[in-house]
């Protein structure tokens, strides 16, 4: 309803900017969101430097794959409303925050996965900061996404409902241009950063769009050097198309290096 009312309010402006908007439509939007205030001095007395590292890495690598403009926020701009207000237009989405598979409003055993928005400058996270997959599902409105990366704990597990919020089935045999990446269990920041560096290093290390995202995943998973959290081994997981080169394309279009 909010989207519908916003659209109606926009009609006059839209009509007057039709030419510019159509031109803008050629863009392949990506958003990179990283929660940093929950991990800053207000709550911890020190500033955890990983949120910025994850953010900066992804902004540059999404751009290298051809997504543009790459927007989003490190810190206070990463709000639920900003995320949900922009996600419909995205082709690629990245979130670095606390994430988990929470019980749905209907109760156990139903899951409604979520990550936490940035709490805002000078604040700490609470459960009210959850951005639930059910809300994202509504906001995405059936739209197709090329790349979704949840750099959080738990949202790559088999019980995660987050892939479905982006219309990505938990299969590794999709023929559409979709790729979802997440971590299965609790994950040290150093491990997720190492994994993502290896993933992007391989993916964007050769000639543009000659490698598949699933290959980059296999490369990153295989190089090792990941620390377990207690008895929980580091594990990443993916779903989507095994032969997708990351080109920001309309999913129904054939990509030159995809072998269908």
């Amino acid at each position, binding site marked *: 309803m909010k989207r519908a009312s916003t659209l109606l309010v926009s009609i006059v402006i*839209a*009509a007057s900017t*039709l030419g510019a908007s159509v031109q803008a*439509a050629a*863009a392949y939007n990506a958003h990179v969101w990283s*929660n940093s205030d*929950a*991990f800053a001095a207000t*709550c*911890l*007395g*020190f500033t*955890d*430097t*990983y*949120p*910025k*590292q994850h953010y*900066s890495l992804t902004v*540059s690598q999404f751009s290298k794959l051809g997504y543009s*403009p*790459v*927007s*989003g926020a490190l810190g206070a*701009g990463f709000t639920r*409303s*900003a995320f949900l*207000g*922009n996600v*419909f*237009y995205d082709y690629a989405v990245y979130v*670095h*925050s*606390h994430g988990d598979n929470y019980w749905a409003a209907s109760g156990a055993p139903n899951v409604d996965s979520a990550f936490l928005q940035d*709490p805002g400058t000078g604040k*700490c996270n609470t459960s009210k900061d959850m951005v639930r997959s059910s809300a994202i599902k509504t906001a995405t409105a059936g739209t197709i996404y090329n790349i979704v990366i949840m750099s*959080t*704990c738990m949202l790559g*597990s088999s019980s995660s409902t987050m892939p479905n919020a982006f219309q990505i089935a938990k299969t590794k045999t999709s023929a559409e241009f979709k790729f979802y990446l997440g971590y*299965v269990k*609790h994950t*040290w*920041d*150093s491990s997720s950063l190492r994994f993502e*560096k290896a993933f992007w*290093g391989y993916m964007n*290390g050769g000639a543009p769009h000659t490698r598949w995202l*699933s*290959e980059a*995943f*296999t490369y990153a*998973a295989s*190089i*090792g*050097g*990941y*620390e377990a*959290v207690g008895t929980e081994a580091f*594990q990443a*997981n993916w779903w989507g198309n095994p032969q997708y080169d990351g080109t920001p394309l309309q999913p129904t279009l054939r990509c030159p290096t995809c072998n269908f």
Partner: protein
Amino acid sequence: MQLLGTRCSVKTAVGTCALAVSLLVTAGQLAAAPTQAPSSDPDPMGKLAREEMVLDAGASSTLLAQAGETGNALGFPVGVKRIGKHVRDGFEQTEYDEVTELDSKGRVSSITQFDKSGRLRSAIRLDSPPRNVLKVNSAGAIRAAQRSAQTAGLTLGTPSATDVDQATGGWTVHWDRVAGGIRVRGDETRVQVWPDGRIQSVARVEHDLAPEPGQRIDADNAKHAASDNLDRWFAGRNSGYAIQGVALEWVEPNGAFDPMLAAATSVPYRLAWVTEVKPLGDAASAMWLMTLFVDAGDGNIIGGDFVE
């Protein structure tokens, strides 16, 4: 106009397709206006690159043969062509030689990497594992991993851990690196085993170690050093902490607590007391677990890690 087809297919309420796109883009601008990331990011993390320099056939003949032997020993598919490269990997802050095996379609089927001393760094096949096959059990996966590691020239004993790999349905078998009786945090030999018992990858992660400190503080002193910092950090906040454990390990000094050190050049690992801390109160709402690396020589905090 690739966008029009996709986005219009889910938005049929508005008249023409072009107008719909116009509305949607405008609505997006109204709904929220997050900052557009700068194109020239001054953060070094935004400038990482992996440079691959192809070696000529003469220079790489030994390398190609070595990679072929490794691939054969691991049961990797044999391609139609091998290419030797020298890689400057800015993401991992290291350099190595790499051989890519190409299949008949020209795609890379496997990668084999050797470090500067010519030792195997990793061997990885990139094709997909079989699905719906009879899965080897843990003991079978360990046997396959040990056999493959041995044929690849690595001597290994009993693995440190064997875990189900949700991504492939197979197993990950790994051995912690131990130097002088002390574990090296993150360093390991890792073998990934497909569900059918074939090998997906063998990797060895081994960092340089700094000399041991002349004098070593004990665990209690390390705990005090960690507590001093934690008390100062959490003072006056609705947060607390509980130290869950202290263990001596070789660690990579990092910029976890210090932005000036984040993404710094790779340095040798140092001996430290790894202090595991469970945040409590407000801090626990987003931070699940943290570690402080307390230098085993001088008691300074030289890095840490977080589970957010």
